[in-house]
């Protein structure tokens, strides 16, 4: 990644239990999660996590339940204290912060969106959206404009005087997002923010987040257990399993080159045509010679190319980015990319 790194996690360990320090030594010596549970009755939450999160991009942390993803995100604003490790934000190790600095970090630099919304039921939507300025001691009159602006941006015009329980789940989560945006923080932590919503609303919210990202370029850390969601939102994808990072990198790359059977399992259920982009399967070349049926953009999905080709596998396309030719795309190659590696005959040796 050539981008600036906003958040950097180094050698982060978290062990839950009465006496984590000796357990930490054992884990560092190579003890597994199951062994630790059986022999020491300690739960290994996170195991040597090293992740760099680029500024202004969306980092998605994906894993099944129990993989430690919610634990990890709570370390970024120290809602959970690590057993060992470092978390650097803008070049400062936040684990060295005292209580006042930590509150400052939470008020100004990081905001959080929760799976179960976690709005204050006794305050109005406007007061909820203005939680961050209210915590700083600003009066409702002062923050009302800012909060209203963000409420309108997330599609809640004129709902400011309602109470959260009067809104539907999707609308409540919009309030949650408006609350995070009103804090004007660079970093937005989203803990399974859309998991409690039904599928259609969830798609709406994902699109809302993508729009907001295009406009605001916040550093978003998004937790999900849903690979479709992860691939849709991620600039950088981190896959967790049993508390350690299985693979991280550019999502297209992970999709095409899974390095672990666990990830292959994940990836096999995906609608690849919708997720994969032309740039990931094209042959890079600047002299696009030969006969072509047309031009496609490097960021188009394969699905759109298939629809353009009307299913004709003999066609070839010139791939362009910002109008410049960057490669060629053969429809045969495209179709082959749609099949997961395991099923395509190139069975890889596992283990």
């Amino acid at each position: 990644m050539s981008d600036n790194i906003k958040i950097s996690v180094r050698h982060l360990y978290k062990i839950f239990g009465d006496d984590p320090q000796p357990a930490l030594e054992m884990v560092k010596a190579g003890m597994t999660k199951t062994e630790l549970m059986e022999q020491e009755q300690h739960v290994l939450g996170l195991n040597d996590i090293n992740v760099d999160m680029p500024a202004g991009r969306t980092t998605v942390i994906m894993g099944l339940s129990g993989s430690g993803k919610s634990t990890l995100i709570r370390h970024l604003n120290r809602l959970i204290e690590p057993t060992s490790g470092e978390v650097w934000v803008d070049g400062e190790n936040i684990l060295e912060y005292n209580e006042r600095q930590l509150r400052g970090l939470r008020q100004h630099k990081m905001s959080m969106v929760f799976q179960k919304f976690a709005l204050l039921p006794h305050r109005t939507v406007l007061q909820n959206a203005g939680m961050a300025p209210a915590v700083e001691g600003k009066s409702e009159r002062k923050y009302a404009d800012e909060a209203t602006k963000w409420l309108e941006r997330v599609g809640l015009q004129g709902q400011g005087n309602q109470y959260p329980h009067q809104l539907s789940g999707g609308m409540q989560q919009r309030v949650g997002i408006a609350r995070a945006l009103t804090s004007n923080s660079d970093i937005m932590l989203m803990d399974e923010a859309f998991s409690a919503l039904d599928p259609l609303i969830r798609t709406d919210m994902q699109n809302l987040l993508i729009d907001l990202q295009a406009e605001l370029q916040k550093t978003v850390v998004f937790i999900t257990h849903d690979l479709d969601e992860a691939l849709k939102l991620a600039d950088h994808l981190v896959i967790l399993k049993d508390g350690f990072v299985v693979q991280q990198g550019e999502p297209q790359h992970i999709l095409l080159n899974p390095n672990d059977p666990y990830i292959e399992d994940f990836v096999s259920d995906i609608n690849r045509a919708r997720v994969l982009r032309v740039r990931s399967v094209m042959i890079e070349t600047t002299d696009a010679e030969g006969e072509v049926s047309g031009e496609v953009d490097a960021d188009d999905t394969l699905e759109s190319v298939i629809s353009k080709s009307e299913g004709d596998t003999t066609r070839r396309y010139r791939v362009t980015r910002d109008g410049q030719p960057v490669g060629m795309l053969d429809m045969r190659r495209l179709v082959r990319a749609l099949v997961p590696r395991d099923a395509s005959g190139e069975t890889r040796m596992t283990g």
Partner: protein
Amino acid sequence: MATYDFVFEALGLKEACGADDGGGLSSMADLMGDATGEDQVVSLWDTPFPSLDALHEACPAIPQSREVTRGLEQGFLNIKDSLKVVVDPLTQPLSWALNEALWIMQATPWWIMIPLLMLIVYLVGRSAKLVVLVAVCFGFLAFIDYYEYTMQTLAIIFVCAFICVLFGVPIGIAMSRSDRVQRGMIPVLDMLQTLPPFVYLIPLIFLFSVTEPKLYGIAIILYAMVPVIRLTDLGIRLVDQDVIEAADAFGMTKRQKLYGVQIPLALPNIMAGVNQTIMMSLAMVVIASLVSAPGLGVLVLRGIRSLELGVGLLSGLGIVLLAIILDRVTKAALARINAAQK
């Protein structure tokens, strides 16, 4: 001759026990023995438990059980004066508050008092039905000339319930914040709740003069404070952890969290505690009439003492009416809070 002689003989402690001086207090068995002139033969079946009295018979150096109660009494009397030096000034404001409240409630003419109470009920409950109920109840009690007594009871309850909330809510908050405080408080609360109410009147009578209002004030407060403490603790502990986490994530201080999140969200439970506290102070105010608490309890007591059936029943009915009013009004307030929070 006593059952446990052999124990002391076996241990060689007969000397240490000292000789039976024959004087002092003797047991019934000894008297019987003296009267019949023969030793009582105790069968195995009748072997007494090695209690203080039984052991005393064998060894006079061991005190009799009556010494325990006497010692307790003496101990209390010994610390009484120094205890009084501390407790008396601390609780004096309670006496003043009770006296003032009693005076105000009785000095205000009925044609101001009853409409005022109706207004308060309306402001708290926002229900016309409730206001009518209050008017009818007070009207009835005044009609049978129990107005004075009712106002006295009400004055005592207002003062005591207010003080219960004033101290009970902070104690409940302290319990909710620290498991250690909670572990320490729970046995105390259990004891206060299960101790028969008459029992803690006894040391209070020794400590204060029976003519002082704080005597019954303290008894009522101790008895009635428990529910509001418990439910405040419970209410704050039950506040949704997700919301607390959100408050943390947005950098709230502990104080902001307490006043902005925990107390408002615990309010339904706290109000349920206030309701229970008021009900329990009403129950106690009747018993407290034994130690000169004025009000409807005095009439109940008169009904029992001089077997005036009508007075007893009617004053009982008066207490029930008060209980219904206080319960309905606090519940109406609770319902309004709940409605605001869903």
